[in-house]
């Protein structure tokens, strides 16, 4: 049997009072090396769910176990050696050079050598080598996303069996870069047996690059299955509109919203 990296029991998160239930998931196990796409309409609780796993939010009820230990008991430093997070957007008031931002990915790393070469390599992986000496403040949304991605790569550079949490990482990128980065991410994760959990808006990116789909609607886990096994009908139910389904000759499936 596969090794479990993350398990969730009776997880509940309320806003303000018990009337506003943001997340309500009774049981979930994530195995090492899985590639998980979290899908759902806007405001369905996907980001809150990810924040709970990232330890940014504390659950109102229930427990999240990470590597067999209650997430609430991990120290920030230990946790940073085992999981990285790429949040939706990162605004910054202070002007830091790109190379410094990326190298800050390794601020808590045990091995502090080779920082510069790792920084360079990570910038290359996220197609941002040309931004090395730029100032973050003048970058476009898509360029910032790539720099933040490189920072995450730097954090997990020498880590095995880590967990990587992404919240709509590619929203600000053009289609070519989205695919290029997903390929690099896939390779990076495979080499290090990294478990990836990503909140996505693009159904087809999920179908192309991820193994397992978690459908979240109104904070509830609607579907949890291998993406290949999830029917068009389930997608339609999740988003509440019609999809056209195409299957290419090499068995790739595409869904187009109508």
């Amino acid at each position: 049997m596969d090794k479990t990296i993350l398990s969730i029991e009776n997880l509940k998160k309320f806003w303000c009072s018990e009337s506003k239930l943001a997340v309500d998931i009774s049981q979930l196990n994530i195995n090492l090396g899985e590639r998980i796409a979290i899908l759902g309409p806007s405001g369905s609780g996907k980001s809150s769910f990810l924040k709970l796993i990232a330890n940014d939010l504390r659950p109102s009820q229930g427990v999240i176990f990470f590597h067999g230990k209650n997430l609430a008991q991990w120290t920030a430093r230990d946790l940073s050696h085992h999981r990285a997070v790429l949040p939706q957007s990162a605004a910054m008031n202070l002007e830091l050079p790109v190379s410094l931002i990326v190298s800050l990915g390794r601020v808590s790393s045990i091995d502090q050598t080779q920082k510069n070469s790792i920084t360079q390599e990570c910038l290359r992986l996220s197609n941002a080598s040309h931004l090395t000496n730029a100032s973050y403040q003048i970058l476009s949304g898509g360029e910032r996303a790539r720099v933040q991605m490189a920072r995450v790569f730097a954090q997990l550079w020498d880590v095995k069996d880590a967990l990587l949490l992404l919240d709509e990482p590619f929203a600000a990128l053009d289609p070519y870069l989205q695919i290029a980065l997903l390929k690099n991410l896939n390779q990076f994760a495979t080499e290090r047996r990294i478990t990836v959990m990503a909140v996505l808006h693009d159904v087809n990116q999920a179908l192309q690059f991820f193994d397992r789909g978690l459908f979240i609607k109104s904070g509830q886990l609607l579907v949890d299955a291998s993406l290949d096994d999830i029917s068009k009908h389930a997608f339609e139910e999740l988003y509440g509109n019609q999809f056209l389904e195409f299957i290419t000759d090499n068995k790739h499936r595409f869904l187009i919203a109508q």
Partner: protein
Amino acid sequence: MSILGLLMCFIGAIFIGPIPIPLDAWQESAILWDIRVPRALLAILVGAGLGLAGAIAQAFFRNPLADPALLGVSSGAALAVALSIVTQTWLEMMLSDYFEVSTLHVLRSYAIPLAAFLGALTSCYILLFISRKISFASVANLLLCGIAFNAFSSALVGVCIYLSDDEQLRDFMFWTLGSVASANQQSLFWVGAVLIGVVALIYPLYQSINALSLGEDIAHHLGINLKKLQVRMILCIALLCGVSVACCGMIGFISLVAPQMVRMMVGSDQRYVMIFSMFLGGLLLLVADTLARTVALPAEMPVGIFTSLIGAPYFLYLVKKRAAAFHG
């Protein structure tokens, strides 16, 4: 280079003044050694402390316009000093039951520095509490809270003034105007000791402070113990502002302008911002004090007024520049 510049200004400053120092017998000049050197040294140390406090505060609130004086940390410290002056007789009466007269005397000499530090610390914690609810990364929020906080402390200082007698009133004037004229060995020792202590406490953390610039969430993801870091930063700001208010009263804008100018020159990497803000802060206050005691000869302006006169318009300029950067 910055050390050289500071040294040259220092030498310049101690030879400038109403009473000329004979160049052939400067070693024996009492005015030089007993008055001008301590004063210039105090100006440098306090300026350096304020510059560092500003650099830490800007990183803490992730806003390049954050300034301990503007946010009301200094006025909080001044308020605590004012309170301690007004309640001194009453406090001594209360405490005389528990302490010997000699202990009381020692307590009295530490009352003002202690009050200044506690006042600064309390203000810092209140600001931290507010910034948890209302993000200070937004300039508008920061300024509005600063205005409210400053107005509140000035009102309370006003109450203290209303309740005070003539002699206490003169004390207040000193603390609200700010001056480095009271330099002596004791004040030099305290400011120097606090400055060295704070640098030892905060400078090794420059990389964590950089990570904090990325945002609290990201710093947490990167393995930074946020609570510990923030408490340390607050403690440092409070120590620096407290000791400077205790020795020199309120001196505005050095803590804003020095780190701002450094950021323009070397960027926002805290490794450099903290060090150069100290140098520049020391330099600015030294120059300001030298000007303050010479422009209106034979009278002397309090340096706090002088820094505000120059600093306030500069601050407006910075706000305008930032607003322009956001809107087009």
